[in-house]
């Protein structure tokens, strides 16, 4: 069988156009390698990409762990993980960080009792899934509005959470960071760092109130139904990207990375179980 087109889905987190720009080099290389027209798509939220993968209209995406779990739970035959990003330190994990405004006097989850708490996107691992499981372990209560927190809301995404906390819409919220580097810089990479770089927040005015256990980096996935040679060619391209074009890899992998390494479905079983837990 043949494909006539290869379609790459891009998850949110940045300006749609920045995302397209950052991945333009990957698009060109893929087109060259596969010999078919390749296109980039940048839907507004995680769900947009996931629906595309499920419906077979998107062939490849770099999902979050929870996003992968959702795809798998909806249709186990839809996609398969191929590669995962490896951090500069060799690990492939990141953290969900709980934070609040310094001037609110909140310094820990205890202080958050009765306050407004902000999640990100429902399909985010660090912005919802992991904290929604690990935070109750600390507080000993559920995440339902009124149980422990006064109100629990979804901001819609990591950026909105940060701005929301900074503006006082939420008393505290969770977002992701690599956990490396300094707090005052917003860590080495992650949503906080981007907000600092953009001049949106001053880390002096924020405090960390919670940190999760390491979260496995999300997989780069391909649609299972793709022809085998396409999968092989594309995986090879992705795997060699950091070495052949570091600049391109920086854009595609959202910052410094040591490289990518193969990964399978098993690495995400935990997340899938976690996600099942949250479904009613």
């Amino acid at each position: 069988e043949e494909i006539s087109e290869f379609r790459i889905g891009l998850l949110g987190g940045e300006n749609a156009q920045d995302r397209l720009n950052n991945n333009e080099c990957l698009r060109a290389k893929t087109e060259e390698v596969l010999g078919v027209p390749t296109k980039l798509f940048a839907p507004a939220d995680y769900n947009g990409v996931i629906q595309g993968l499920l419906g077979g209209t998107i062939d490849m995406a770099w999902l979050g762990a929870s996003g992968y779990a959702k795809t798998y739970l909806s249709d186990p035959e839809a996609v398969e993980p191929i590669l995962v990003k490896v951090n500069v330190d060799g690990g492939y994990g990141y953290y969900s960080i709980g934070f609040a405004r310094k001037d609110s006097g909140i310094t820990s989850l205890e202080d958050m009792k009765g306050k407004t708490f902000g999640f990100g996107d429902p399909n985010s691992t660090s912005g919802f899934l992991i904290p929604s499981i690990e935070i109750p372990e600390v507080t000993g209560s559920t995440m339902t509005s009124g149980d422990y927190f006064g109100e629990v809301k979804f901001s819609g995404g990591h950026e909105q959470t940060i701005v929301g906390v900074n503006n006082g819409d939420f008393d505290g919220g969770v977002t992701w960071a690599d956990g490396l580097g300094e707090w005052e810089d917003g860590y080495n990479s992650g949503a906080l760092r981007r907000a600092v770089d953009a001049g949106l927040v001053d880390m002096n005015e924020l405090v960390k109130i919670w940190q999760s256990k390491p979260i496995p980096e999300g997989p780069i996935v391909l649609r299972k139904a793709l022809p085998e040679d396409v999968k092989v060619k594309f995986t090879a391209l992705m795997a060699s990207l950091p070495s052949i074009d570091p600049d391109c890899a920086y854009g595609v992998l959202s910052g410094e990375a040591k490289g990518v390494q193969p990964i399978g479905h098993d690495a995400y079983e935990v997340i899938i179980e976690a996600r099942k837990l949250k479904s009613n």
Partner: protein
Amino acid sequence: MSITANETDFLKIQADRHFAKKKLMSFGLPVLVVAYLTYIFFAFDILGLAQRFEADNARALVADSYSYKTHVTRDNRSGDVSVAIEGERKGTYPKGTSPEWVTLGDTDTVIDLGDGHVVTFGADNFVSYDVPEYGVITAQPSRAKGVQAVLPEGEMPEWINASKNRMTITTEAGRLTITRNRTEVFRYFTGWELFFFTLDSPYHGLPVGEVMARALGGEASAIWQDFWTNKMWRHQDVAWAIFETILMAFLGTMGAAMVALPLAFLAAKNFTPLVVVRQITRRFFDFFRGVDALIWTIVLARAFGPGPLTGALAILITDTGSFGKMFSEALENVDQKQIEGVQSTGAKPIQRYRFGVIPQVTPVLMSQVLYFLESNTRSATIIGAITGGGIGLMLTQAMITQKDWEEVTYYIVLIILMVMVMDWFSGWLRRKLITGDESGH
């Protein structure tokens, strides 16, 4: 006197009562409105909102919409100094070059923020900021000891925000942020920088006349290319996005009109005497219309994926509902006489519709379709924000990441212009097609 005094008295009493009722009515309505708005006032917590109102954000938004900032950054680990417009990679000055207010030295970098404000990056991560009428602030960030700021005598003013590992100084001239890893200066300028050409273009910074002259000198296509592919403002992508938005509106509206017209006959009393068929068709219209285009977008995204086609189909489905309803109402209002006139000549049913019905309803239908074309341009903006296409996505994403407010402003201006142009265009078409059509074939 036409009537007796008695009767007049009776009339007066009646009038009194009448006016009492009127007073109640004319009071009752405003009272209801005020009561409801009061309820809303509390239900929506407007007082609390006023407290949370972020004047700073509003100011930042307004300021950023017509100004830009240039970042001068030193990486305190490597000592490298870079100058970048809006701090973005695509706005970075090539190594060794800088705007004239930044003097790059071997060890010292002198940044003149204007009005006497001067920031100097010295050796060993040393930073000094000479603030007129206040004094010189120095700092020497290091990994071990933090920022180590030294301020002039006296109470620390509120425009300085300092902690062990971080210090921010915000003045009218600009902003200085020092952390252990980085030292960064912002200077603000009015305007939309790099709107025409980015720094890597040879045409950047040239006066308009000069660019014009070069364009006439045969460089027109190169100039256009540099402008069109401007990485900062991405004019090409924006143009495509606008086009996609209009395309969604056009395909959706026209497609819906074409689907709805035959269906409308099924829903019109005078054309479909069968109650069952009529009711089923009408309920279908209600359903298509009642489920908003937004939800159709989500439903369709699974089958067609993100993109303008999905948006166009969502508009098509919703508007089939709206048009179906409106068209069938128009059809129910047709003048039977004309149809009978055509029928009496022995015309076939299809000819009866063509000449007895269509000429009557075209003006109404046409004006409704064109009105929707304009309003769908607005809807398409929103739908694009969800399906991933068009100017709507660019706008919402630029807003959500909350940095490039000048881009947000640019998109908003473009959207308003786009909608106004479509409004004007549909009005023009309406006049041309409906009133200008003399023989009305």
